């Protein structure tokens, strides 16, 4: 008997196809995010002053370069 991972297997074989599909999509995303983060350097505002604010309605900064 085909081993179902899900409790019901209401969609039959499609349960497993969807399940494996989700896994494959995430594995691809893992690979893409690794390659992108490896090859594309992040863009930082290296100046600490003057302080930028996140939006006009907040007085709080959203960037502070830690030393």
């Amino acid at each position, binding site marked *: 008997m085909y081993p179902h991972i899900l*409790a019901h297997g209401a969609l039959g074989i499609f349960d497993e196809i969807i399940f494996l599909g989700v896994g494959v999509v*995430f594995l691809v995303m*893992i690979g893409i995010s690794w390659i992108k983060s490896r090859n594309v350097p*992040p863009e930082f505002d*290296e100046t600490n002053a003057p302080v930028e604010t996140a939006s006009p309605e907040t007085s*709080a900064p959203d960037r502070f*370069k830690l030393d």
Partner: protein
Amino acid sequence: MPFCLNPFTANSRAVTLWRAAAVVLGLMLVLISEPAQAHGYIVRSIPEDRATLERAPVRLQYWFSEDLEPEFSSITVRDQAGGVVAEGGVSPDDRSLMEARLPTNLTDGAYINELRVAFASDGHVIVESRVFFVGEPSSDVAGLAASDQAVALEVVWRAVVYASLVLLLGTTALYNLVLLPAWGSKTYPAGHLPPRVMSRLNWIMTIALVAAFGGNLLALLQQTMVFFGADASRVLSDGLWQVVRIGTRFGDTWNIRMLLLALAAALHGAGLYLRGSQPETVRAFWAANAWVMALCMGTLSLSSHAAGSLLLPWVALVSDWLHTLAVGFWVGGLTALALVLPAALRPYSGDQRRQALLAALNRFSPIAGAGLVVVVATGIYSASNWFDTPADFGSRYSGALALKLLLVGLLALVGAAHFMALRPQRYVRFEAVIRRVRRFVPTLQLEVVLGLLVLAAAAYLSATPVPQRQFDAPAPPSATQVVGEYTISNTATPGGLGVNTYDTVITRNGEPVDGLPVALRLVNPAHDWRGVWHSAENLGDGLYVAAGADINRAGHWLTLVTIGQGDEAVRAVFEWDISVDAGVIDSIAPGWLNVAALAGVLLAVGYAAFPLGRRFYHKLDLSPSSLTVAFASIAVTVAIVIAAGMIIQQSNGQYEAAISPPPQVVNSVLPDTASLERGQAALVAHCGDWRQGADWDELIRRLPRLRDEELLTYTQEGWRSLATCDPSLTEIQRWDVVNYVRSMELF
């Protein structure tokens, strides 16, 4: 007005935090120290609990809302004296069905069915007993409600695994979405954060990974102990854990989770190993690990209440996954932030310290807000799955949910206060609230404690059984006939659409008769449809069993039971009225509340994904030509999909009508032994005895493809060399002839 932050690095603060965490852990254990119960439950039982039957049933059948583990599930039937009268287990054809065959010589009295049920999705084992009476009911005998064998060990591993996975996801998400953009600098090639911050993050990841591995190993040990009823030393010395790991669904989910954790550990280890030689890879490993942990959180959903939902199980599963992801981003991120802040802010004081803190909080605030919205929306959808009647609101599950909602509400209030404190100009009227929380750090600690309490409440909720829906179903159709020397009883269980078991008990002079050739066929006269002949298996005690999915629509059905072969054959015909609600419920249609809750989930996900969508939107080419092509493509695609759907639907209808059109004339005569005898006599006397005709064999060969109304036409008009029957034959006599000719199909 300058902020006056207490030194977060002070030992007193750390001690307070850990004390609070210890209190939370204690509360967690107290809260969930009640026995956890399984997610599954009985959706149909034959006979019903405490049913009083005139005579003993042939078999006991219990359908559950989820699949069971065959190796660890059993049923034992005892009489009032405690003697075992029958044993059974999970049906090889249906893993959600547990059945036991009963001997036919059961005397009047009370019978106790002991069920040991191991659910596949969560590995929970319950033991309960049910009672039925043959003859007179007795008030002295009662069954036992389901009890759970979960031990404190289960509570511990569930809490550890849940908390560690939430922290792992929260830490990786915090690094990528908050700390890097808020504090990142190219000065530090290994992770773009100062070494003290990266070191703290690495420690959090390492400890959480160790906790997750440890919790999972504990899970396998505890689950094996429950399945085998063995102690830890025997589980380890005999290698029983391997059986559970390889041979159960709990083991499947466990393997997947361990595999993903091993991948996360490998990525984390690689980042640590390469931080000196290839520092640019550190950020890449952290980015990849965020996706690994998001996938790993899905394994929690695979063993959640959602996995056992009868209502749109896939939607419930995805909703639960979104729920755990949102909790990970919100509570896990918050906890990780609270643990990182002391190291990150150590060199700063005064206004610089405030700005560094606010930079992180300002980045985290929208993530927490989106997480809260998704948690609430998916929580409402999940609740709508389980609350069916007003009585459900008084259940223990309802109480556990209320506790969790209360804590989530408190957490949301603190979060809202922080949100306003970050925007004092906009929320001037809440100045009093803002003044209380503007130091942020103490109330962040409070938020973390509340977050841990929410996790504890979530663990409690996941260990609480959901309200069980009641499904009213008619008793399975059953009847007894005397044909010749035989008394024939036939039962179709559960007696609804789909797979049924056909039990035929044959006795002669009160004694069971074994060794007979018994064949059985289902007929739907209104559609002139016949199933295949099932050869029934003789299981002893006069019981002959067959099974099939012949009943495919509601309405009037016949079961033809033929005993013996050739001229000695006898035929019994049983009539049933099959209703749609007679089958075993394996799914529930969504109501308006479920649809509304699902719409809420979609809106919440849309709200959470809005910033991403906006960024994507700004990257789009919005020139008129591009928009025209895009809209035209979408319109054409939608039109093609709709047209294809309509064509497929129409084709299916035409195909159905072509292969099984409703007959013009319905055979109104039951094809029982008497009808067959009459038909044979009429065929000989009024039809020139077709059996002597040259085309008789060809007619018999074609019978599987011929409908009754066609055979009726042959009696009126003849067929090839087979003569027309006497015009004086009545319609009933003609149907008798048809029935007799049809009976030749088997013999």
